[in-house]
């Protein structure tokens, strides 16, 4: 005892060394040495510890969801939400495509075997004399030169060049484009007469223009649809809508004899994202 009092530092060093040796002792030796003194200590504290543990469980059960945060479940839930949004967008796009296809089948004279191929617009060029679109489908997908390209019931143009995985579409809205059309009542207008005329695209006003006799103008109303009846176009393109009558005004040169009818295309060619190519049926 006197040695411990007079040499506390040496005693402390000895204790530290002993504890260090104990901490790196093999587990079997540690279990053999220390399990015996452990028992009385646990016997002293365990009764009260058990009571407190029971109290803790009664206040806060072990798997209380108010306090447990399963991060994996939360992450999975977020991933499912994102996937759900993607699926909803795809469903919306699929419904839109179905309605497009339905509109095309209803409004045109397509044969049952004619295919409709969705294609994305890769590039739009409406500045040069030849307004064109580039689509991401080519000969590999069944696209061929001369096939009509439509969007819902509107005619957009026809395929002019075809590559393996892409094609160029010449639009109807290019300068000096001549089309033979029928002017017929649309769903929003009344009347039964059908007027045949040839329209010419005027890039100054970005619309088709035709000159008609004044006597015929009574049968034409604003909102009438101009549908294609041009023999120079493929059969699958006939009866697609070129535009709608936007205005009628006296022809400046012969105001009493002639009327200038302006037909506006329905579709804004600069904002096309997806189009339909009418694939010709395979002939046996």
């Amino acid at each position, binding site marked *: 005892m006197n040695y411990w009092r007079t040499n506390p530092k040496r005693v402390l060093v000895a204790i530290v060394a002993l504890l260090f040796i104990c901490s790196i002792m093999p587990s079997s030796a540690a279990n053999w040495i220390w399990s015996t003194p452990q028992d009385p200590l646990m016997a*002293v*504290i365990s009764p009260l510890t058990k009571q407190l543990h029971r109290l*803790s469980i009664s206040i806060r059960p072990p798997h209380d969801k108010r306090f447990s945060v399963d991060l994996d479940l939360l992450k999975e839930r977020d991933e499912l939400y994102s996937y759900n949004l993607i699926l909803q967008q795809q469903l919306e796009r699929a419904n839109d495509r179905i309605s497009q296809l339905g509109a095309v089948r209803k409004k045109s004279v397509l044969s049952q075997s004619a295919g409709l191929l969705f294609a994305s617009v890769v590039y739009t060029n409406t500045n040069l004399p030849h307004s064109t679109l580039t689509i991401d489908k080519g000969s590999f997908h069944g696209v061929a030169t001369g096939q009509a390209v439509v969007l819902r019931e509107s005619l957009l143009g026809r395929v002019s060049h075809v590559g393996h995985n892409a094609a160029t579409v010449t639009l109807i809205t290019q300068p000096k484009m001549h089309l033979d059309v029928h002017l017929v009542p649309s769903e929003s207008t009344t009347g039964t007469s059908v007027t045949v005329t040839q329209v010419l695209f005027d890039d100054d006003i970005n619309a088709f223009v035709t000159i008609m006799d004044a006597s015929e103008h009574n049968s034409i109303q604003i909102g009438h649809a101009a549908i294609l009846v041009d023999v120079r176009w493929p059969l699958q393109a006939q009866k697609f809508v070129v535009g709608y009558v936007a205005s009628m005004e006296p022809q400046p040169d012969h105001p009493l004899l002639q009327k200038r009818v302006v037909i506006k295309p329905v579709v804004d060619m600069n904002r096309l994202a997806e189009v339909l190519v009418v694939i010709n049926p395979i002939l046996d």
Partner: protein
Amino acid sequence: MRHVIFSLTLFVLLTLELGLKQLLVIPRDGGVTPSFTLILMVYVALSAPRLIVIWSAVVIGLCIDFVNPLPFINDRGIIAVPLIGPSSLGFLAGAIVVLELRSLVFRQSPVAIGVLVIMSGLIYHLVAVALLTLRGIPWLPTDAIAHWDISGQLVRRFFELIYSSLMSLPVGFLLLKLDPLFGYGLPVRTARSGTT
């Protein structure tokens, strides 16, 4: 008398630490609980003479080593073995840190206890984790602890330290109220006296 009070306080705080785990646990990183015994060690290190601080730290560390057995793998599977040394040496190291810093703080302040809990606790946990990790060295005649993950241990112990520091405010306040019972009688530093 003060040894009796110290033993009783250690018994109460150790029992609370073990018994209220389910109530106080934060279910992150394997369960984070506060350490009341660490707060007691810091309080004693602030208040008691040097020799008493050292012995008290060793005793508290020994108790922690006994009541927290570690998992080891043997031929029977995983068994819990009480391993003496890591917490004892860790508490000793933490107590020495507090001894060196106690002249710089207001001893009657629970906030000072909270701050010193963090500082001494850092040393305690680092020493304990280092000693336990040492067992994994191949050329030592020891066997590693089952499923020992250093980074996981350090993260969990860090959050335990923060939790203990927060709990030291009420617990430290209560311990400071028990000052007359402990009766360590450590002289307060004045302008005329030297360092305690």
